[in-house]
């Protein structure tokens, strides 16, 4: 029965699943959904966590099963892979724009700041007013993948999606 759907169609259906913490982008735009394949009559969906301890992974797994059950695919296996390790570079430009519009400063297009050990923070644009006059309040924000900043011009605090 599940063979009546192509991988492309499955991808399209799964693109309706939002990230539980950041509902403006879906799991494909975020780069969490890696692969869909059929093994015998089972639909295998491969996902990768943003952070190893990300509590949203279990919710995403359940969402995938529910979504596929809705279209009649009962035999679903969700596999978790760590390699290649998730990176913020997988977030598409459109998704970055959606993040910004949602009030989260998107990650820069460069992974792993080498200066990280020296504790240097980077210049960030405020997602509200666009000012670069911002400062970091804390490297750890409302979720594992975000840091907390504030804009010194419009005074708004905002989340920054950390580069990984």
């Amino acid at each position: 029965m599940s063979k009546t759907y192509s991988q492309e169609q499955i991808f399209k259906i799964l693109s309706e699943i939002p990230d539980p913490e950041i509902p403006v982008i879906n799991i494909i735009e975020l780069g969490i959904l890696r692969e869909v394949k059929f093994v015998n009559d089972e639909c295998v969906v491969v996902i990768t966590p943003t952070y190893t301890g990300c509590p949203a992974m279990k919710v995403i797994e359940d969402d995938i099963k529910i979504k596929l059950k809705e279209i009649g695919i009962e035999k679903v296996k969700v596999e978790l892979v760590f390699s290649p390790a998730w990176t913020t570079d997988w977030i598409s430009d459109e998704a970055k724009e959606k993040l910004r519009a949602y009030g989260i400063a998107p990650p820069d297009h460069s992974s792993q700041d080498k200066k990280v050990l020296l504790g240097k923070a980077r210049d960030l644009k405020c997602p509200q007013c666009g000012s670069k006059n911002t400062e970091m309040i804390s490297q750890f924000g409302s979720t594992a993948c975000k840091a907390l900043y504030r804009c010194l011009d419009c005074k708004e605090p905002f989340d920054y999606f950390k580069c990984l």
Partner: protein
Amino acid sequence: MTVQEAKFEYLLRLGDSSLIIGHRLSEWCGHGPILEEDIALINIALDFVGNATSLLAYAGQVEGKGRDEDALAYLRDEREYRNLLITEQPNGDFANTIARQFLFDTYMYFLYEELKSSKDETISAIAVKSHKEITYHLRHTTEWMYRFGDGTVESHERLQNGLNDLWMYTSEMFDMDEVDAILIKEGIVPDLNKVKVSWEKRVHEVIAEATLQIPVTVFKQKGSKEGKHSEHLGFLLAEMQYVHRAHPGAKW
């Protein structure tokens, strides 16, 4: 000892250290000195527990006796735990926690850097992922090292006390035994002497820049690799494992 047995043992050492330090950090929830720091400590705790989940899940597969990550975390007693002694030490004051995290994070940072090139694909994949996370943790704790060390007389003294108290637990991080020897030969894990050189260099640099002193401790406490722990681990496990053991197989 077979390679498989050595690998299981090594994964417990890594996984247990992450789990126990993650649990210790989680005790800060609602007690952090400021809200942002409370959130930071719990984020870091979450990373460590997540990391432990991956390592212990893999340990269970390697062992092949049907134990999953939960069975390994909740149904083993003290003597079966292989976490480094430093990870089970109580939080103390905030400076003490920072000292513990700094010494441990620096160790994990250099250890995972080496494990990235492990010939075991799963260990390598977990190391790549964890190294990215630990980089953020280390940056955070290093900043506090400077702030406290080069801060007020009070903050300097408290951090120095923390370092002095914990220093005797650092040498066992670099002890190697049969498990290491077998896995080094297979290209699965690094020689810890290599990690030690990087660790010492970095720790000495930061301590000097933070105007602190390297503690002079002659006594070195060891034992975690044989499951000999300080008295603190038993109490920690009692709290961590209570619900799981009181309600076996419970789900929600």
